[in-house]
């Protein structure tokens, strides 16, 4: 029992840290923000799923993917297809030349629902697809690359290309995908209006809940033998291979898991924001996700969540006030993090804790044992 508890939460410190995050997300923010801002936070949290996947893939398995937006997009599109079909019932689309199909299909002279859209009439299928479709794509790509020992920069470039390909493919097939505009005008989920503020509250808390679940699940994976294997692989890949492990399959698995997390994030994004478009799939968002993870600390699960929230809040505030400056600030931030704090926020917190805890200890011992004429304590940082 105790062992399971330790594996899930990483001991007492882990529980406290996760508790603080959950309290911030589920109590502090909902009480202090209006629904518009809270919905924005909810949107950022969907990116945190991708950042979480990147911590596992990049931070732990040492494989940098610059195409995680693809999986976010795939999950999002799966969800959007379901919602779009529900929004396109024959009555509300009766002015179309073919009622009952999504509006953009009608505009593109398509008269019948394409076969690959059919299964998305079912919610259970859609929910499954949100996780499975990104995983399958990641599996195929992962097996093709990792079995051939493609890694490092080459892997990053190929995933980057994948992001470009998918966004162009969606863009270029307007009749089937909604093209550049994406899939818009999503209204209800099984008749439940997802645009009402009541629904937005509920979706926000669902997102928080799933995020905490994802963190706990990742923590569980990392705390066992798999986590040690990933660490060992980053250290001495050959040694792992010659200890009888199929190294590539460990990478494929991590890639798939990260993809599945991203897919869930994408689906939650669509539910909260009400649309999806190829601009959320391509190169720029994929790289932004990497920045979120890097700022938070690429080896820290919780750091990735804080990093995502912080960068996006900065993005919102900055771009509301100085729209032209935002991209420069973002670029500068990334360079600063890489050069100065390779372990991001989590690294800084760790550093402060290391500096402060002996200082605090000093303080405690010197206050319990007051000595006359003691030398003044050096005060490095504010505690």
């Amino acid at each position, binding site marked *: 029992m105790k062992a399971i508890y330790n594996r899930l939460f990483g001991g007492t410190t882990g529980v406290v840290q996760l508790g603080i995050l959950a309290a911030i997300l589920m109590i502090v923010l909902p009480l202090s923000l209006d629904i518009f801002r809270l919905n924005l936070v909810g949107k950022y949290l969907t990116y945190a799923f991708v950042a979480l996947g990147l911590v596992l893939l990049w931070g732990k398995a040492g494989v940098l993917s610059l195409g995680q937006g693809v999986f976010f997009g795939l999950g999002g599109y799966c969800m959007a297809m379901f919602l779009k079909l529900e929004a396109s019932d024959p009555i509300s689309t009766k002015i179309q030349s073919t009622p009952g199909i999504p509006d953009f299909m009608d505009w593109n002279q398509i008269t019948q629902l394409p076969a690959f859209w059919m299964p998305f009439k079912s919610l259970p299928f859609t929910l499954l697809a949100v996780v499975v479709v990104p995983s399958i794509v990641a599996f195929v790509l992962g097996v093709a690359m990792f079995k051939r020992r493609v890694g490092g920069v080459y892997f990053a470039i190929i995933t980057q290309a994948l992001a470009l390909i998918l966004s162009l493919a969606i863009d270029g097939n307007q009749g089937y995908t909604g093209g550049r505009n994406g899939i818009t005008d999503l209204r209800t989920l099984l008749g439940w209006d997802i645009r009402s503020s009541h629904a937005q509250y509920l979706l926000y808390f669902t997102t928080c809940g799933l995020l905490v679940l994802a963190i706990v699940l990742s923590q569980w*994976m990392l705390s*066992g*033998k*798999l986590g*040690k*294997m990933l*660490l*060992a692989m980053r*250290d*001495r890949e*050959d*040694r*792992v*291979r*010659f*200890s*009888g*492990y*199929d*190294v590539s*399959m*460990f990478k*494929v*698995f991590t890639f798939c898991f990260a993809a599945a997390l991203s897919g869930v994030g994408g689906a939650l994004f669509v539910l909260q924001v009400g649309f999806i478009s190829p601009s959320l799939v391509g190169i720029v968002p994929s790289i932004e996700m990497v920045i979120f993870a890097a700022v938070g600390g690429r080896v820290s699960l919780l750091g990735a969540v804080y990093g995502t929230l912080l960068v996006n809040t900065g993005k919102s505030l900055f771009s509301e006030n100085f729209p032209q400056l935002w991209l420069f600030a973002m670029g500068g931030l990334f360079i600063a993090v890489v050069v100065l704090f390779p372990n991001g926020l989590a690294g800084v917190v760790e550093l402060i804790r290391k500096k402060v805890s002996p200082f605090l200890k000093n303080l405690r011992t010197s206050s319990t044992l007051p000595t006359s004429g003691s030398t003044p304590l050096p005060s490095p940082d504010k505690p």
Partner: protein
Amino acid sequence: MNAKTDFLLYIEDLGVSFDGFKAVDGLNLYVERNELRVIIGPNGAGKTTVLDMICGKTQPTQGSIRFKDRELVGMAEHQIVRSGVGRKFQTPSIYENLTVFENLEVSYPKGRSVFGSLAFRTTPEVVERIHQVAEQIFLKEALDLEGAFLSHGQKQWLEIGMLLMQEPELLMLDEPVAGMSAPEREKTAELLNRIRKGRSIIIIEHDMEFVSRIADTVTVLHLGKILAEGSMQEIQHNPNVIEVYLGH
């Protein structure tokens, strides 16, 4: 041709060329069960390349390697390991960020698949086995130390220990005492003589004094070919070997 043999390892006509350079050429090597074979030879003779081919790191361009009557050529590295071949590298390859205990733990031959590793639990059996091996490799007191803090010699022992966890039938060690102090060599020889029971071992080594203390049979490689093979006595008096290797 395919007569059943008693040899554990049965290498015939093995060769590999890198861009036309024949690093190993038409090599025949037979290792019996429970034999301790030492391969010596000057630098560039192809010693490490032979081990690389046996464990699948390098694909041979010709020839066959049969282990327990199974062809190893073409098998993936992890499958070769799982069939019972353990390999220690020339520079100590251990996981610096894991403790000695964890280094041995991840080498335990269970939970090697992805899902197996998720379900893997460090049972009392595993712990007992780790303690047993740690005792053998003189690292019982260092179980909680991170790999990075071990001395060079201790790293070499730890890597041997990691192989022992897998209980391989064929153990291949590439220069196990390189960089070790005299007392450490002493202990390593003692260790090898203890762990050789029930398995075959191939060792590449330069230190002739060390070789003479452990070897059953010595194979001398030169320019990718076998120059001589026999007991230490025979090798030391072989004029060809003295000429190219022992000489001076």
